[in-house]
């Protein structure tokens, strides 16, 4: 049952990713394919018993971030010629090269790391365990991330204000 679900959601995730890359003319359809990938990844996390990660994947990425993408795409109202200019052959070649390189690196780092399935500790992936880890062992990293986000937010408000004035 778990394997059937895993292959189903994995196929959906890959299909969604392909849909996003291949939908060059229609950015909104591309963004919706991205949503499909995000939701399928969330389902795969749940199958791996990382419940909090899975539900946050849907809540934050699929539910909020891609909606903001859509918001921007709709406001910009891109036309064909806006999209066409940057699509030169040399950029495509560089992109393809980078993709192959990344895939190779992932393959190399994964090579030989597959052992027997790990035994999960009690409460693995629950919001309690993640919350405890986040607010005790990793408190400094957590707080500095929030400072970083605050800085980005203040910066974007200042930039937007300047162009308004």
């Amino acid at each position, binding site marked *: 049952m778990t394997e059937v679900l895993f292959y189903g959601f994995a196929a959906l995730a890959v299909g969604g990713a392909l849909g996003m890359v291949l939908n060059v003319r229609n950015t909104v*359809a591309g963004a*919706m394919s991205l949503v499909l990938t995000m939701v399928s990844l*969330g389902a795969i996390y749940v199958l791996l018993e990382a*419940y909090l990660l899975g*539900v946050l994947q849907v809540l934050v990425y*699929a539910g909020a971030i891609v909606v903001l993408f859509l*918001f921007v795409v709709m406001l910009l109202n891109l036309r064909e010629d806006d999209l066409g200019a940057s699509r030169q052959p040399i950029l495509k070649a560089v992109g393809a090269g980078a993709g192959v390189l990344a895939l190779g690196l992932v393959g190399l780092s994964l090579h030989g790391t597959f052992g027997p399935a790990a035994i999960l500790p009690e409460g693995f992936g*629950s919001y309690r365990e993640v919350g405890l880890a986040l607010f005790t062992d990793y408190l400094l990293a957590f707080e500095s991330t929030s400072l970083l986000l605050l800085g980005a937010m203040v910066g974007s408000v200042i930039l937007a204000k300047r162009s308004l004035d």
Partner: protein
Amino acid sequence: MLETVLKLLFIVLVIMGAFLPLITWVERKQAAIMQDRIGANRADLFGIRALGLLHPAADVLKLLSKEDVVPAGANRVLHLLAPVLALVPAIITLAVIPFGGTYVFGATTLDLVVADIDWGMLYVFAVGSIATYGAVIAGWASNNNWALLGSMRASSQMISYEVTMGLSLVGLFMVFGTLRLPEMAAAQDTTFRMLGFVEHFGWVESLPVWLGWVRLPAWGLFLQPLGFLLFLTCIMAENKRPPFDAPEGESEIIAGYHIEYSGMRFGLFYTAEFLEVPVIGALVATLFLGGWSIPYLSQEAIIGGVSSVFGLGFATGLCLILHVSMFFLKVIFLIWFQMLLRWTLPRFRYDQVMDLCWKMILPLSIANVFVTAFVILFLEDLG
């Protein structure tokens, strides 16, 4: 497996089979009563009008028989997908809502919830966040400027209120110490002393003695009154019904994101909106009105009282029926309450909707988190 399917059938049949058709009739009749009119009473079958109860059936027949139009410039696939994206989240939210407690019949234990998951409330938020796409995609795929304006309003409103909806519940999570909905409902099946803490202060003697012993049901409403108000506001804004219906404000943008939909495809948006009314009722009842619990009459009290006369099996069965009826009674009350608000308050202007969210509800819900934390620390200190 069979048990899960039966529970699923029960909740879906009650909410979608009984509540959903009646709710359009209730809304019209309630509006009519509130505005001193007669209301829907024209649809008849062989001269029988049945108080206008035939109107829902007439509506569905009309919507089904209308032409299904997809505009020429529209993106066909996304245009057809949008109503489904709007409707599905409302249905699947029902999976985690408990419509009764836990009952032990001899060797078998019956949990009256379809999916008892540890992160139940997070599931509700995640599903709710997917509902945004229905409105957003509908407006964009229609290739109509009014529809696009409507979906812009809908997406910004829904994203903003999702943030505050989550924050307004943090206090409640701290009080109950769980995100599991059946556990939250069960925690409310008791009472607490409203002013139980005052005896720790010197000035308690100046108050009448009986005041210290007044007991209230341990409902979320009494433990988190501010949280209740904020959450109810946010979840009603999420549903985009009046007074939060700026995304479909007829006087400004005609009908908003579903202007280019006709027939049953429009009907699906309509259904999603109406279906969310009982779903919101069930959610608010579970979180704040004690779910299936009967005030001042806990499960042990019912079973203990009845089983001494009629036996344990009968007592448990009776308790189950009472609890399920109580739950749907609370849902009906909350549906009435939502309709009351809908016909009382005028539509907010778009900037007022956003100001309410970010300048009023957000600071208040953060303050609620801190006040709740201090009170919990204080009470733990007292022991």
